[in-house]
């Protein structure tokens, strides 16, 4: 599918309007943003600690176990999304805080932070929704556009979607290795990545060991030692469910950001030598937003403002709400589509899209994508 481009003049003035929004907002970044992210980190740490403790109180009544699991799940979501994703983008590097530094930070998940930084910050944010370049588009397992050639196994992709949701952190962990066809298929030649395959595999397993030790050995064993075997399994199971909650939520939010019905895809030729205005335009057409409450925005790591995040990936997440209001006005002014809706509405179109492209394309020539 080729995307119809607005005129060069429109793109130029669009580009200027967006730069102005960025400059205005970045000039305001300071103490307020630092206080905000520190507050979120405090809440996250508190929920992490209290959640794990409350789960132990499940020894007295199962309801505590349930509360603890939900709190831990929420702590993991905050850690991965509002703190991890955004800090690892470099949004808070200006604070010079070694614990909130994009190169130092790692998250509570099985995916190695360095590996994610390489695929996400570079591949996905530079080549957003370019088929064949942005492997986040469908994660190599889903066919979400007719530009992806049909293969028979795509018939089962609704089931794949469910598996991907449940195992999302593992998919993210394996994402870069899969790109190199390590463990599956014929391994690609070395040299495309800045690190060797051996190092990639080593980092992959190191991070998995660290994460598995915490959730499935250390905490269950400590509690089990004092309170007996049933509690060993209660904590192990609780941690498993907390990880599951995080996987489901992260996956839903992320899919609503790029795979809703209206989101466009691009091919490589279209993006050769693209102007800054064209790049902005591609980011807007390639992303979609979610409307909802303040808590929903924070829990989504402000990826509910996916469009603004893609326009200004290193703007502190705290500023995306105010950026969104202005970006929306600029889009309206230039007659450029701005895709947003409630979580439920957006996710319905994601599911519809997954089902739609699980059917083989019609034989007659090119099929336009809505």
């Amino acid at each position, binding site marked *: 599918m080729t995307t119809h481009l607005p005129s060069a003049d429109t793109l130029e003035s669009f580009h200027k309007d967006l730069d102005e929004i960025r400059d205005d907002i970045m000039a305001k970044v300071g103490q307020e943003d630092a206080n905000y992210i520190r507050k979120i980190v405090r809440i996250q740490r*508190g929920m992490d600690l209290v959640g794990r403790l409350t789960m132990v109180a499940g020894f007295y009544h199962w309801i505590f176990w349930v509360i603890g699991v939900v709190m831990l799940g929420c702590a993991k979501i905050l850690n991965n999304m509002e703190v991890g994703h955004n800090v690892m983008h470099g949004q808070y590097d200006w604070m*010079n805080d070694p614990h909130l530094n994009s190169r130092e930070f790692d*998250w509570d998940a099985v995916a190695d932070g360095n590996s994610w930084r390489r695929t996400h*910050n570079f591949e996905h*944010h530079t080549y957003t929704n370019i088929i064949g370049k942005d492997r986040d588009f469908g994660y190599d397992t889903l066919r979400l556009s007719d530009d992806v050639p049909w293969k028979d196994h795509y018939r089962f992709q609704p089931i794949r979607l469910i598996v991907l949701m449940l195992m999302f952190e593992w998919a993210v962990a394996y994402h870069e290795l899969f790109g190199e066809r390590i463990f599956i298929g014929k391994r690609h030649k070395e040299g495309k990545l800045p690190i060797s395959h051996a190092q990639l595999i080593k980092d992959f397993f190191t991070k998995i060991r660290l994460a598995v030790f915490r959730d499935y050995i250390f905490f269950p064993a400590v509690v089990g030692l004092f309170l007996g075997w049933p509690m060993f399994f209660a904590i192990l199971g609780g941690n498993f469910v907390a990880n599951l909650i995080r996987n489901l939520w992260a996956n839903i939010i992320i899919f609503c950001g790029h795979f809703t019905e209206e989101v466009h895809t691009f091919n490589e030729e279209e993006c050769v030598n693209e102007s800054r205005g064209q790049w902005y335009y591609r980011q807007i057409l390639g992303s979609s937003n979610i409307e909802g409450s303040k808590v929903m925005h924070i829990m989504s790591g402000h990826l509910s403002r996916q469009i603004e995040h893609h326009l200004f990936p290193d703007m502190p997440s705290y500023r995306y709400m105010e950026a969104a209001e202005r970006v929306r006005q600029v889009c309206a002014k230039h007659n450029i589509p701005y895709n947003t809706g409630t979580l439920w509405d957006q996710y319905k179109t994601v599911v519809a899209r997954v089902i739609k492209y699980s059917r083989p394309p019609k034989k007659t020539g090119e099929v336009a994508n809505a």
Partner: protein
Amino acid sequence: MSQAETSVQSGSFFSKAHEWVAQSLTQQNKISAYLEPLIQMAVPGWTTEAIRSKVIQVRPETNDVYTLVIRPGKRWKGFTAGQHLQITAEQNGTLQTRFFSVSSAPAHFRKTGLIEMSIRVQEGGRVTPWLREAFAAGGICNLTPAEGDFVLPAGNDPVLMIAGGSGITPFRSMLSQMAATGDKRDAHLMFYVRDEANALFKEEFEKIAAQHENIRVTFMNSAEKGVFSAEHIQEVCPDFAERKVMICGPTPMIQLVRGVVSEQGVSAENIMFEYFGAAPIELDRADAKDAYVNFEKGGVAAMSSAENPVSLLELAEQNGLKPLAGCRVGVCHQCKCTKKSGVVLNTLTGQYSDTGREDIQLCVSVPVNDVVLDV
């Protein structure tokens, strides 16, 4: 800093196990780093990285020099006269870090628990003018352990101290320490000042010199006498050749004095000097606006011409380095690295950086003056 390094090197099985468990449970190198935000709720400004300390007073010295009087936290172990340290304070959400010499004596610290740092306000600077305002009513800052080897040489050799402007601070520490401990070493200070009004600590030095036969202080008024020269030293301190020469001041002054005293026959091992911040890159340049970029890890110094500036990433690659890079347009942050000193222009935002240590993106940064990079 050296303390942290030794503790890592002496990494026993136990400390490695602690680090591994901390990584697993908290994704941090130390459990305390995970707890830091929670501890800060009770103790604002507490960090795992440095020692929480209190600024007690900001004392004006001259128009553009002030002294911070600081009570270092309990973990701060003391210092040797002449050493410097890093002070970190939060400015509008950013942790700003600067190096300063301690200008008071270790004996003063032992007696009162206080240290002093005397700071010149840099014109157009982001931090030095702000520190004075921000701590006017006291406040919390963070200090690193003292470091540096610009200290009185071992033994009892006579010394000649040559100071320019705020380069006086380590010498004030040394001389007041000698006075406090009754050190009998022969010391002669030549202190170059812009004019009478900028003669820092004048009364104090005159008092010390009057009370101690072994200490001499000569104020050199640049407005009258001009910059440092061979005649000055021959006239003021004729036995300079038998002394160890210690120099501290602005970069051009240090370069001038080093040149002159070497010509006068003082051997290199008898000359000690201290720059503020990173040492400048001593190479000839075609245009005064050209900037040298020192890629420290790569061991390469390269020139960036003012006429055809290129990004630091391109400069590194032209000089055979291969820093990690991705999108090359400032989106992906893969080429991010630490700038140790110098000013760069961010071509994406059109903003100039600070002069101190901070993270920059190589692909959208152009050097403005001499830059030292941890690449």
